[in-house]
């Protein structure tokens, strides 16, 4: 196997992995603060893919622009979901939270199926097949753009949690809920904000994802699993961990596709998951669980 081919595959795996990482970051943020696992995360991502697709078809908006309205839409969706349905479930047993979100996931994915049908939809951009040439390396332009946006969005999120009052308040609620309530933080609103932010991550990731692959409703459960695997590998609740996990999974998928068979690519991710659960259950960058 020529080295340049491997290098190409590795590079494109890393770039795709950054988009995965952004999606998983949303899941990680929600879990880190609200302590609820969003089992509808992949469904939200695919919802965003379809929203991007509709904006492209109706208004001709480039996904790289429409990701802003899509992110806002998903933020509103996540906020409303947490404020109406999930807030009463924060103290309920884990399996009840799971069932609630599995129900939400079923509704989203099947509404998409009813509206758009099972066939794959894609946006045909003028630059879809262009690539950058770096010596022996050929990288798809869309992949580079998608990864760059993913990095920028992640950086913005880091800045939000470190530098703003609301971000600090959310971290306070995550660290010590009772303490946060005592000093007068409205944690229900903070939880809704957090869920909105997590959903917005899925939203941006979805807008980017449609640059890399066609949208079908069937992708949704796969994305949920993928996001879940990434945050467990990286460390549930750790923001850099989500990004690292995304890159690792993107890389392992790309290499498995090259060395074994493209249809077997998620096998390696599952193997990685089991390995991490057994050897380091808190994830690569996670604190103690």
């Amino acid at each position, binding site marked *: 196997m020529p080295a340049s081919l491997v290098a190409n595959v590795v590079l494109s795996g890393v770039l795709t992995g950054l988009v995965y990482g952004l999606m998983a970051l949303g899941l990680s943020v929600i879990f880190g603060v609200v302590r609820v696992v969003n089992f509808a995360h992949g469904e939200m991502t695919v919802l965003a893919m379809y929203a991007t697709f509709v904006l492209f078809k109706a208004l001709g908006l480039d996904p790289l622009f429409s990701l802003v309205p899509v992110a806002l839409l998903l933020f509103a969706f996540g906020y409303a979901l947490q404020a109406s349905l999930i807030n009463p479930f924060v103290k309920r047993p884990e399996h009840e939270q*799971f069932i609630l979100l599995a129900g939400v996931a079923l509704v989203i994915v099947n509404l998409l199926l009813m509206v758009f049908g099972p066939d794959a939809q894609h946006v045909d951009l003028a630059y879809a097949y262009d690539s950058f040439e770096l010596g022996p390396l050929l990288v798809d332009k869309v992949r580079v753009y998608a990864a760059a946006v993913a990095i920028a969005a992640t950086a913005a999120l880091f800045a939000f949690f470190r530098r703003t009052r609301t971000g600090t308040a959310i971290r306070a609620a995550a660290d010590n809920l009772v303490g946060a309530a005592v000093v007068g933080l409205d944690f229900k609103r903070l939880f809704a904000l957090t869920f909105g932010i997590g959903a917005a991550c899925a939203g941006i990731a979805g807008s980017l994802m449609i640059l890399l692959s066609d949208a079908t409703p069937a992708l949704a459960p796969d994305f949920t699993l993928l996001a879940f695997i990434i945050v467990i590998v990286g460390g549930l609740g750790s923001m850099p961990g989500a990004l690292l996990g995304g890159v690792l999974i993107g890389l392992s998928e790309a290499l498995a596709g090259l060395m074994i068979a493209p249809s077997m690519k998620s096998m390696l991710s599952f193997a990685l998951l089991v390995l991490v659960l057994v050897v380091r259950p808190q994830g690569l960058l996670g604190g103690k669980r």
Partner: protein
Amino acid sequence: MRRALAASLPRPALYLAAAALVLLLAAPFMVDRYTLSILILILYAAYLGQAWNVMMGFAGLLSIGHALYVGLGAYTAAALFVHFGIPPLLGLFPGIALAAAAGALIGWLGFRFRIAGVYFALLTIAFAEVARIGFDHIDWLGGSGGLFIPVAAEKRLDLLDLRGGIEMYYYLILALAAAALLLSAVLLRSRLGYYWLALREDEEAARSLGINLFRARIAAVLISAAMTALAGTFNAFYNSNLFPEHIFSIGSSIDIILAPIVGGLGTLMGPIVGAFILAPLGELLLSLTAALGLDLPGLELVIHGLLLVVIIRALPGGLWPWLKHRFGFAASASGGPS
């Protein structure tokens, strides 16, 4: 065994159950083939729900990967029949053994390395997904193109090979559902059943009483996986075709958990009540949309999703405990979950 179940139910409920049993036994003589096929779906869901309930309802172990055990039971018996002519009545045993072994592996990983709650649920999904992708690539089992069991002449009843008319499948699944109900009733009243309830409610307290948590949990997984594999064998020979994309899918696993959750987690009647509500609801929707001239493939699942949300929000214990309370079945029952 009978006493265990009878003791759990007050008199009016017992009469009702007896009447229901008589009706179910007489059903093939009273209803058409279509209705009978719906009843098979209902009883199949009730049986699987009962099997899943042993893990989640009794022992508090959330499995979202039960499709794995269905698939293993289905593929093992089907492959032995198709390739070696081994009758499914024998082939179901290796199927059960394989599913139990897979359950033991998942359980061992989960309990040995203290992977609990949603992490454990994810582990179960991961194994089912690995099987789905793996079986797609096993040519000997038909790969993603599917495995087909030759269909014999309908009229000939061949119980050993599980080939026969729809009535045979009906009585088989009725017997399985009844047996699963009895087994669950017996389990709940056994020492093991009390261990499960104890560790489900308070792990630390259970441990301090000297209960071997690992053993009790593994037992729940083994029993549940074995029961589920049997349903897989039934599924394979009833439908005569198997596709990894379908039988091992997350959707199939979700289907399994619906009935017990809607009916009532951890209760004996819950999976049955849930199955009798869900399957007719689906058929009703189907005929309703057909009458309106609509083709909405996702509608039933949207309703299922909404149902899950509403039930878990308003009645997290499920419909059966609520019904029981509402209609006074609970009046003479003595505490224990039934």
